């Protein structure tokens, strides 16, 4: 019943993301949109690092690329990543939001507009407030909002900011996030 998963993370999220991506089945039925804060001057290496353990292919999408199930789409460095209503990726070099480009808020907000109640959004560990507004929009559009348990986060600012703005559906540990995703069809 869900059509996509969108995940936002920053400081302290890399290991969590790696663990999640290594636990998904090869034929995971949904696309996974990843907006992770990253160094803007390091264009290469990140997608490779995520790919090492991931069971699904991870790619940095081209502008207007069609989103397909069973693939991970990582927001490229120094670009915002939007989802168009026709389920294509659109990239943008507009000004940073919350000092971030890519901005988690923008990926979440546009994904929520495109997928409405067919979207699962997950906010992970991070050191700023990016993602809180996006998760709120996702919830308002009928999506399912999940936040990593702040007690488990290396840096809890981002998850706490999200929890302050949104009554989320679940506060999950990494293990719980994984078992939840494994149940998606």
């Amino acid at each position: 019943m869900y059509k996509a998963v969108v995940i936002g993370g920053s400081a302290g999220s890399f290991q969590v993301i790696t663990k999640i991506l290594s636990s998904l089945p090869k034929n995971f039925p949904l696309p996974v949109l990843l907006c992770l804060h990253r160094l803007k001057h390091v264009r290469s290496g990140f997608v490779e690092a995520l790919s090492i353990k991931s069971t699904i292919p991870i790619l940095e999408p081209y502008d207007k690329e069609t989103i397909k199930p069973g693939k991970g789409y990582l927001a490229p460095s120094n670009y915002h990543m939007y989802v168009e209503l026709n389920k294509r990726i659109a990239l943008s070099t507009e000004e940073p939001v919350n000092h971030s480009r890519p901005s988690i808020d923008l990926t979440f907000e546009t994904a929520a507009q495109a997928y409405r109640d067919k979207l699962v959004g997950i906010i992970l560990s991070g050191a700023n407030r990016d993602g809180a507004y996006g998760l709120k929009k996702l919830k308002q559009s009928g999506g399912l909002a999940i936040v990593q348990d702040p007690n488990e986060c290396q840096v809890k600012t981002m998850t706490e900011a999200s929890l302050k703005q949104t009554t989320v559906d679940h506060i999950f540990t990494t293990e719980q996030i994984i078992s939840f995703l494994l149940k998606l069809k």
Partner: protein
Amino acid sequence: MNRYELGIVDTRNIIKTLQDVYNYDFKNYALTFFKRRVERVILNHNLKDAEGFINKIENDRAFFEIFLQEMCVENTEMFRDPSLWRVFKEDIFPKNVQDAVNFKIWFPEVSSGEELYSTAIILKKLNLHKNVQFIASSISELDIEKTKKGIFDSKKTEVNDANFKRIFSESELSDFYTIENDNAHWDTSLIENTKFIKQNIIFDDYPKGIKLILFRNQMIYYNQILQERFMKIIYNCLVPGGHLIIGNNEKVEYWNSDKDYTLINKTESIYKKKLS
């Protein structure tokens, strides 16, 4: 805080107004982007909603120009992706501009001018600037004026300088700009050889005999229909063997243009138009 959100019907009405009143056709802009920019204008100018926006823009030509500038996304910085500019400096420019006369370089959407000034500075450092003519188009008259005057955002100084150091480790970008109070200015003699063209969304008239086109991260704001239209024009403007540079995450295959070009540098998205 809840931002004002533009609905689909409102968006269509706005696009229709811009078409009817000013003959600018935005319907083939990427929808997410267009919506977001209009929402921003509504917020920044206290226009409340779509109706407020339409009332204002219908009767206010100056405001329409402000809107057009808003639709031209500023270049993020000077020398974005320093590795591309190193390829220009070490390979493309020495090889192609050295013995050229009137080597034409076109910026189909010059927006805030960083790509133009970055190119000019590299050529100046190589002492090849006299061999080149720049052509800079924009849908925004305000951006053209700003670029001519060399005005830029002083907040970007730090990232600009750092990028420049990655290309010319021995020299300082500050040789080319001055900052007084909060005003930052490029040395405008860098762009003496520039012809500016104010254009509508798609060109009525476009330059010919272009040797190199720098068009990075601008077509991402269009949908595929408009992207393909631009690619046709670009193809006609560019001489055989001429270079086309697009953004890292753009791809000519998406516009059915892969047969027309050879990809000569994948990392930096540098294409060369085939000879026939």
